[in-house]
């Protein structure tokens, strides 16, 4: 393997990891607030199809991204209303959202199947892209990849270093205590769920505008689910999500690369790697009951009713 090939593999790993990074960051914030949204895949698909429709009809990929973000947040608001206001079961509602999004996106998108658009062009960042090795891996992407970098770093700061981050954690760990000190728990959760929707929309837009600039049914192919695993894999830490997304990206292309090089490893085995890694991490985390509690937001998946005492 020469260095050119390694650069190209890592470059591809970043591209493959980007949709995972977007959607997993969104799910992370959502889960931090104590809400488990299994509707990722559905929101992502809706984002992808609406983003594509908008970009296709206006010829402007930027508008596509905006449309995808709006669509993602609408989907998440439906979810938020059901689980936060009506008190519906989060798991069931999330699953329903995925099924709904999968079906609706196929329906909405049927008219543009087989159309293509001009997606985003890669932009080599001046100076940075000239750095040997790193430059070619990190700084010759398109604008959405760069925004995913930025988003990860902003979140790393916000979650760990700011009041907003603390509020979010408080709501996710102990909503009743948070309520008692005057934090509006439901409002925080609404915002967190919406953020998840925005990111899912972005992730969908990345799929249909950049990654494969076309719309086909079910084009996200389970990435929403991988993101859920990724959040667990990263044990609810932003930095680890970034690392995990690229590792998952790398693992999912590695078996293709190795085959091309003529390695006779079973591709099925290699394709399994990301999932094996998730299971292993789960086992490690669950082995230590104390650690497990420390990592997952404690009220994850539990509804909060301000009228009820803890």
């Amino acid at each position, binding site marked *: 393997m020469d260095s050119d*090939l390694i650069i*190209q*593999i890592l470059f*591809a790993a970043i591209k*493959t990891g980007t949709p995972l990074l977007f959607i997993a960051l969104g799910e992370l914030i959502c889960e931090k607030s104590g809400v488990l949204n299994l509707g990722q895949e559905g929101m992502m698909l809706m984002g992808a199809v609406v983003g594509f429709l908008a970009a296709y009809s206006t010829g402007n990929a930027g508008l596509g991204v905006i449309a995808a973000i709006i669509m993602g947040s609408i989907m998440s608001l439906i979810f938020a209303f059901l689980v936060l206001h009506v008190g519906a079961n989060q798991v069931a509602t999330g699953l329903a959202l995925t099924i709904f999004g999968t079906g609706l996106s*196929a329906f909405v*998108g*049927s008219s543009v*199947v*087989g159309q*293509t658009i001009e997606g985003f062009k890669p932009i080599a960042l001046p100076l940075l892209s000239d750095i040997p090795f790193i430059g070619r891996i990190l700084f010759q992407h398109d604008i959405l990849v760069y925004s995913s970098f930025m988003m990860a770093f902003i979140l790393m700061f916000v979650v760990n270093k700011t009041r907003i981050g603390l509020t979010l954690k408080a709501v996710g760990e102990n909503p009743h205590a948070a309520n008692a000190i005057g934090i509006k728990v439901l409002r925080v959760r609404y915002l967190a769920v919406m953020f998840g929707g925005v990111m899912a929309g972005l992730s969908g837009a990345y*799929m249909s505008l950049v*990654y*494969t*600039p*076309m719309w*086909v*049914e*079910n*084009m*996200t*192919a389970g*990435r929403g689910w991988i993101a859920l695993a990724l959040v667990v894999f990263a044990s609810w830490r932003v930095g680890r999500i970034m690392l995990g997304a690229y590792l998952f990206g790398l693992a*999912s*292309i590695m078996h*293709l*690369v190795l*085959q*091309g*090089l*003529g390695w*006779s490893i*079973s*591709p*099925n085995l290699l*394709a399994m790697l990301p999932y094996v890694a998730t299971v292993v991490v789960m086992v490690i985390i669950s082995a230590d009951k104390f650690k497990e509690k420390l990592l997952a937001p404690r009220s994850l998946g539990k509804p909060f009713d301000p009228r009820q005492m803890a």
Partner: protein
Amino acid sequence: MKLKSLLVGLGLLAGTTMVQAEDPLKIGFVYVGPVGDLGWSYEHDMGRKGLEEYFGDKVKTTYVENVPEGADAERVITQLAKAGNDFIFTTSFGFMNPTVKAAKRFPNVTFEHATGYKQSKNLGTYTLRTYEGRYISGVTAGMMTETDTIGYIGSFPIPEVIRDINAVYMGAKSVNPDIKIKIVWANTWYDPGKETDAANALMDQGVDVLIQHTDSPAPLIAAEKRGLRGIGQASDQSKFAPEAHIFSVRDDWAPYYIKQTKAVMNGTWEPKDFWGGFQDDMLTLASINPNLPTDVRAKIDATQAMIKSGEFKPFTGPIKDNKGNLVVPEGHTLTDVELAQVSWYVEGITDEIPR
């Protein structure tokens, strides 16, 4: 052309016997991908539409798309049979065992399974001589490549795909003795994301012409982005990659669906293993790119003509496998039964078939 006249004859026959038919013949289709895949399932659905157009209200068709291969398929096929379909087409290799089981359970329903090899008294099989199109693809790719390296995105290592890889290689080798083929298994029939990854992995390694056995246009789009070339799979995929697209080998199932439906209506249907190719107009080259060099274009036309006339059959001996065994003796052409069991790579392919 033989098939055409046969069709006309059957059509006249059907016309006389079917005039008094009251209930439409109910025909069900099971697809592995979405009808919008613009590849394999899309073309089967075009075949279904062709069937409806031909018979009008004498048939009533339904389809189920996106059916996973495995246990779900059995449920879907059973449902179609229970819903009163008289004739059911299952259109992916992985539907074989579920179809066999369903055929046993519903002896009064006629089944046809695409690309499989198990028949019974109410179950026939049909497939395309896709290797004919692959051979032409190989010849073309062998002439077009500048790196002498062509890439093949495989779906699953089943005889159909292995046979086609061999055909591509033999075609390429016939015009370019230095040709190398890189094979990547995507382990999916349809996943644009994964197909893009596979295409990029191949192009990263020096491949400049892509041939795919997966169904989405994603690899072509990836080739277009990098200024390289690719060949469309199953349906006309030219609009996805106006520059990169060399041609698409298009499947046309309508002639077969019409023929078999007539047989069922007449009560002359028999379980058979049917193979259709260029000779039967079930395979065509769609949208050959005008930007090809003239010598390449001439070679494409000549190869196609030779295959269409039956003058040339790709799997004619002597052929050695890549372990040195003589797998097709001199003067022998593989029969359909033998073609269905190809489980070796021809001499020169350095890869191993994954087990």
